[in-house]
């Protein structure tokens, strides 16, 4: 549009660079969390995550074998082995080493150091060491050696094992691979007689559904097999799912009927009702907390899933009605009038014509509501989580981790990443509908 008449803007490269910078800035924090979730607590504590991709120079404190393992040959007491093997690490190249914490870089590899308690030690570049002394080595623990070595980048799944249960991630990957193969084989085999399920599989929505099912399946086996710690997120994951799905589905139907009435039926007070709904759209949820909690306690719902489902339904309705009404009002009048002439009732028109045609708007709202209920903390805290702490949602579990384990970044990062993974999958798979919904909801 700006480069008409074939004159390319001279600012093109500047645009490319600016966009790259923007994207980098916006992506960087999330990538940090993602990378951190695959690092051990040692790694996280000693170096920034942005260095995780490169080999890092680290100062390690290793120990030789304990003196009790020394061997005597010809009056010479000897302890030998490999420092890295002793510590269960992979071998790397030592650049300098030392035997005192005050001078950790005193010796080069293959140089021989005099031990303070007598004897000598020689450390080779590959970590092999040789301790010699004319008298027996004493003490219960092995000699400390400080080495400076280049450690190759290393990633681990142990954090996920701690947070979700043992081997859950591995199982998820296997399930996912199996499901994909199955889906594609199925699609290939029944290509020409495609039913709805098969047709849905290759679409992004179908893929997202598949992924979610895999997640649920994989995580549930994790819970069954145990290996849970106090930090278990698997349970919180299920609670969140239990909160989210009914809270997404129920408001859609209620809103769809109301939206149809507001869009296509004539009755006194219609304009006023629409105005009220637009007004309710912005009423802060904070206002509803105390009165509704009181109400729930009075009528006996108390704190629990039922309460949180009802609350989410109520809070989601204005947006649902607004979005759906705007969409339905834009449907062609001819279709509806033709149906009426043919003798269809309002109920039939709604179910047979309006509902299928409104699928994009329904999908938009469903995504909104899903993201909103999945990510919600306030409503769950007020209406769901009671003193027993039996039911919790992931956002709340993370807030609790922040309080009790603020320093354990490996746990925190992994837990947070598990909780944002599902919305991210939904987001990337259904972005089209999300954008449509945003546009319908705001630009009018």
């Amino acid at each position, binding site marked *: 549009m700006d480069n008409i008449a074939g004159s390319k803007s001279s600012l093109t490269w500047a645009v490319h660079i600016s966009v790259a910078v923007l994207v980098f800035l916006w992506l960087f924090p999330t990538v940090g969390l993602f990378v951190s979730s695959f690092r051990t607590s040692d790694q996280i504590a000693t170096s920034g995550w942005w260095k995780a991709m490169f080999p890092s120079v680290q100062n390690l404190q290793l120990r030789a074998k304990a003196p009790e393992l020394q061997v005597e040959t010809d009056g010479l007491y000897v302890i030998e082995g490999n420092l890295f093997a002793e510590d269960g690490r992979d071998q790397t190249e030592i650049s300098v080493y030392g035997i005192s914490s005050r001078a950790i870089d005193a010796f080069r590899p293959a140089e021989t150091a005099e031990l303070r308690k007598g004897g000598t030690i020689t450390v080779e570049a590959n970590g092999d060491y040789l301790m010699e002394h004319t008298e027996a080595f004493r003490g219960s623990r092995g000699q400390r050696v400080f080495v400076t070595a280049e450690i190759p980048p290393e990633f681990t799944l142990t954090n996920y094992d701690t947070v979700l249960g043992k081997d859950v991630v591995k199982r998820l990957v296997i399930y996912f691979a199996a499901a994909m193969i199955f889906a594609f084989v199925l699609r290939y085999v029944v290509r020409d007689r495609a039913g709805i399920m098969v047709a849905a599989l290759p679409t992004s929505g179908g893929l997202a559904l598949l992924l979610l099912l895999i997640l649920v399946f994989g995580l549930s086996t994790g819970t069954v097999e145990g290996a849970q710690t106090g930090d278990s997120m698997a349970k919180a994951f299920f609670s969140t799912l239990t909160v989210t799905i009914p809270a997404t*589905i129920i408001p859609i*139907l209620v809103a769809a009927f109301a939206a149809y009435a507001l869009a296509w039926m004539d009755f006194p007070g219609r304009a006023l009702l629409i105005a009220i709904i*637009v007004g309710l759209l912005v009423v802060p949820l904070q206002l509803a907390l*105390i009165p509704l909690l009181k109400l729930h306690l009075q009528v006996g719902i108390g704190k629990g899933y039922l309460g949180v489902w009802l609350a989410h339904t109520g809070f989601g309705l204005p947006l649902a009605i607004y979005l759906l009404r705007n969409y339905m009002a834009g449907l062609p009048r001819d279709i509806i009038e033709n149906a009426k002439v043919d003798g269809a009732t309002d109920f039939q028109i709604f179910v047979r014509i309006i509902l299928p045609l409104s699928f994009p708007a329904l999908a938009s709202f469903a995504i909104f509501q899903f993201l909103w209920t999945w990510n919600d903390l306030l409503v769950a805290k007020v209406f769901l989580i009671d003193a027993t702490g039996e039911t919790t949602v992931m956002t709340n579990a993370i807030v609790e981790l922040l309080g009790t384990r603020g320093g354990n970044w490996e746990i925190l990062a992994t837990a947070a990443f598990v909780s944002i993974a599902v919305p991210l999958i939904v987001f990337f798979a259904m972005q089209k509908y999300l954008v449509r919904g*945003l546009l319908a909801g705001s630009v009018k």
Partner: protein
Amino acid sequence: MHPALQGLLTIVIGVGGCVGYFYFSNVLLDRVIFPARGRDMGRNINRANMVRPWLFLFPAIFALGLYLAYPVAETLRLSLTDRAAGGAFVGLANYQQMMAEPKFWEALRNNFMWLLIVPAAATGFGLLAAQLTDRIRWGNLAKSLIFMPMAISFVGAGVIWKLVYEQRPVDVEQIGVLNAIYLALGGAEPQTWMTIPLWNSIFLMVVLVWIQTGFAMVILSAALRGIPEETVEAAIIDGAGPFQIFFKIKVPQIMGTIMVVWTTITLVVLKVFDIVFAMTNGQWETQVLANYMFDKLFSANDWGVGSASAMIIMLLVTPILAWNVYNARKEMR
């Protein structure tokens, strides 16, 4: 009962109940109350059609009334009563008590700062990103990535940014990006960013700006595409530069959309709770109204003052509410 089973049951009951209600109430209306036969056939059909909208609307109106309209009135009532005194009417005592608390004024001050900075920054960045990404081939990918934080919960975003702001002692390597950059640029010693008043609020705002920019970008980008090309062409023929085109031709034409984005983000800011709750919980002078209210409600158990602060949030939202309703009614005509 297992919660998942309970959930499934609720879906079935909820969905089945809805469908059943709508179906049977229609049948009842058409066959029993106003049957479309006999002597009054014509009149009955008309009558049924007058009642039917309310059948369709009833569940929604009931839920809206119970879950949004009633609480507004009830909160107003609660803010004028004292829970400890058995719900006795105390006039404006709760408001007076709240006004006397320095924490409340701190929350109000911070909220105004959030209101000034976050909508402006998010809309600005969003406009910038929309304009830039519309002109390049990989723009859609870039948009997707900038839009992504919208899917991340405020709590998740809190953790993400806490890692960015993390601080370690001076003699150890920094693991927070901000401190690493600060030291690389010649800072003397790492800062605990979350405890420096004023700056910590700004660092919390960064999180919300980060989330909301994508929203602004998506909407403004659609608006930019809706600008008639002739206006831009005319400007180019008249010799306008890219910046002039942007500021003098494009921005004025999408001013309405910019206002919509601005007010939408303003609404989010007024209700911001999770970010502050997860990252500082209002310590170190970062309190905001929504978190202050939550504190009063569930830590101090003071429903009077909690309701009063909720009413303050409602009061701040009211102008936007009125503006939205006004606009909606204008469109309807």
